């Protein structure tokens, strides 16, 4: 009997929009950080996720410093859609980064509108955030497919040094005998994308440049892309939840704030990924 009363009591509050069984229902919560449990959960999750990404980036650092030579990002990431063979070092990735940061700004605006309890504003800026995230993913898909078309694989790297250590994209083929991807070689001469022949740098052979480059690139940007993808899905959910009036009924847009925290985190991680792969 007593239990029944309790459960009913909890439900009273559920209908008013609180989680069941919160002590806040009975008295002021004594959170030392003055935040709700939901936001705190998100913060701790992000802390945990930060450790995952840190481990990846430390792996990147360890493998990079253990190699004597590393491809020059200005030569690897210099393509731009609809621009033919015009080379614009880091041009495309700058646009991608700008789009992602812009989408973070949109989400900030959505959170602000949430504080004002302005449903239309939240919907508008969430839509912007979602569009930005989707555009970023589209850009990433283009960049990946372009690099794959150039021969980059998780296990093979066609970006090799010449005798002076300059980075070149070399032509590669699949060896029909072994089934493994190799450079097109005559002696120690390889052909670059424009058909020019050049001498391969010392210590490199038909198996191409530093293998870890492609592995790390696809692995880490892929893992980040997976986070962006998840974030877009979550934001789409947030959009429709707002549309249905869920948060208006609850009386606050804290869920949009939590989604925002995740989205800014994904953005922040990209800054570090960008730094590691494109700038250093």
């Amino acid at each position, binding site marked *: 009997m*007593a239990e029944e*009363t309790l*459960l*009913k009591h909890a*439900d009273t509050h559920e*209908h008013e929009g609180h989680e069941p069984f919160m*002590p806040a229902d009975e008295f002021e919560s004594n959170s030392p950080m003055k935040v709700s449990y939901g936001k705190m*959960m998100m913060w701790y999750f992000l802390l945990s996720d930060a450790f995952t990404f840190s481990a990846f980036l430390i*792996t990147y650092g360890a493998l990079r410093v253990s190699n004597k030579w590393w491809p020059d990002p200005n030569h690897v990431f210099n393509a731009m859609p609809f621009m033919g063979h015009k080379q614009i070092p880091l041009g495309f990735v700058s646009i991608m980064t700008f789009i992602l940061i812009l989408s973070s700004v949109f989400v900030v605006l959505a959170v602000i509108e949430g504080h004002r309890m302005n449903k239309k504003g939240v919907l508008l800026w969430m839509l912007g955030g979602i569009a930005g995230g989707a555009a970023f993913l589209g850009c990433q898909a283009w960049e990946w497919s372009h690099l794959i078309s150039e021969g980059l694989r*998780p296990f093979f790297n066609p970006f090799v040094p010449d005798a002076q250590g300059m980075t070149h994209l070399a032509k590669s083929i699949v060896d029909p005998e072994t089934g493994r991807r190799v450079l097109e070689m005559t002696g120690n001469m390889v052909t670059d994308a424009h058909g020019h022949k050049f001498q391969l740098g010392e210590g490199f052979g038909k198996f191409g440049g530093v293998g870890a480059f492609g592995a790390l690139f696809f692995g880490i940007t892929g893992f980040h892309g997976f986070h962006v993808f998840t974030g877009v899905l979550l934001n789409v959910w947030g959009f429709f939840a707002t549309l249905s009036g869920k948060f208006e009924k609850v009386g606050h847009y804290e869920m949009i704030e939590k989604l925002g925290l995740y989205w800014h985190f994904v953005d922040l991680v990209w800054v570090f990924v960008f730094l590691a792969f494109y700038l250093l």
Partner: protein
Amino acid sequence: MAEVISKEHLAHDVHHAPHEEHHHVETFINKYIFTTDHKMIARQFLFTGIFWAIIGGLFSVLFRVQLGWPDATFPVLEKLFGNWFNDGKLDPNAYYMLVTMHGTIMVFFVLTAGLSGTFANFLIPLQIGARDMASGFINMLSYWFFFLSSLVMFASLFVPTGAASGGWTIYPPLSALPQATPGSGTGMTLWLISMALFIGSTLMGGLNYITTVLNLRTRGMDLFKMPLTVWALFFTAIIGLLSFPVLLSGAVLLIFDRSLGTSFFLSDIYIGGKALGYSGGSPILFQHLFWFLGHPEVYIVILPAMGMVSEILATHSRKPIFGYKAMIFSILGITILGFIVWAHHMFMSGLNPFAGSVFTLFTLLIAVPSAVKVFNWLTTLWRGNIHLNSASLFAIGFVSVFISGGVTGIWLGNATIDIQLHDTYFVVAHFHIVMGIAAFFGMFAGVYHWFPKMFGRFMNETMGYIHFFVTFLGSYVIFWPMHYLGMSGVPRRYYSFKEFAAFSQYDDLNKVISAAAIVVFITQLVFVANFIYSIYKGRKMTSDNLNPWNSNTLEWTTPVEPGHGNWPGALPTVYRWPYDYSKNTTGPDFTPQTVPLTEQEIKELESHA
């Protein structure tokens, strides 16, 4: 308070009457299976943990049979275990599989999920005065991720080529090349899938434990009025939250190496004279990523046990815990230091000797907070009115094995001594005593102590005594001699020592160890029998004695079988710390946390301030 609730409730009834029915149908499925009640989830973790402990223990018996009697054949084992025992003799590949799975099961499934999962779920809300975890739904998911993870790992035992067999540390290349050993194929793939699910479960559990402790404490329950169990479980959750993700990164990269042909952890490798296409990776890198989890993991295993032992020792010796704040800060110290000592597992892996000396320093520093705790337990017991029962015996046994196992840690933490002792039975003895036996003792103490709260009945004390004394003595018979084996250089992980004439002098000792292992294993079945029997037939806890141990903490203020929400009326209010034992000159020798301070006590506090 109660009045306010009923008024609201009445008003509410009028408003939402049609809603009521379909909200409150308590079906078998939402009460026992997909439940969001932290107490039921705790029991789910406990049952699953016990199931795994039996499997993990059985595996150790199987490979101890091989180590004790390497020449004998056991046709009966072939009947039971099929081609693990071809012609009644343990297959070498099966031996490695059993060792690997014993480690994996015991460390992750029993002493992480079974221990933290059970007691963090059960004790945190009950001892801080919360109705449930912060998010019951995420808490439920946490158990079901663990359940799925268990299913996958259990299924891997039935793969024809065997489960993972490269050691619980899954070092590449054995774990990275599917063709390396029979178990490196499907078995290893399933291991990685299972662990990915497990990490998800730990993450969700940990998020709940942390936020619940920080946000959902009842009125008056300041952080420094929390029982030490809650403090320990809180720090355990933080360690898990920050170390498991790094294992996830390592596991993801390992999966890439296995399936995409990348070379994160693989360098030039020849198999059967044929070069494989890997180059430039570093197996040492994996070891760093693994041990960044692997070392904090031992604190994930031992801290909950420490917390429960502190609580149980104070209660059953009827004395305030000695050095309450010192206990908390030593847990904090262990938590921080635990993150910066991982490379002491890699002294012999080609670690830079300078790095070795740094890691030696931090490792030896952990002895300081550990010793603080040990002395505090001993001084808590000192001249106490000790009530001996199964719970307190296991708690005292914990202190014994923690000292025995901790002291050898100081040996192994020295990079130079480790040159001689690494990968010998000395290491096996050290970590089994200090984190295996000790954590199990903490868990047993916890089960005996909180069983009445969990199931409303008491466990059988006679069986509990048998369980304690045989396990306590048996554990020392198993692991004490291993120190001697290790010091004379007997390597761990070997299938048989028949090729080494020098080690034949230990043949009889190995028989003794194996025989003791079998006896101890059977004794654990006595515990399981007692556990199951007592759930149905144990002496009942009655509502006129809700606090059988005369304990101060909040969980004993709930009804015999607390419903979902724990307290039928308002939440209790807390006025004092949980360790006011033997303070009164008259009346009962304990003062629960819910008893307001007396005028005398307030005066004392004011004079101190």
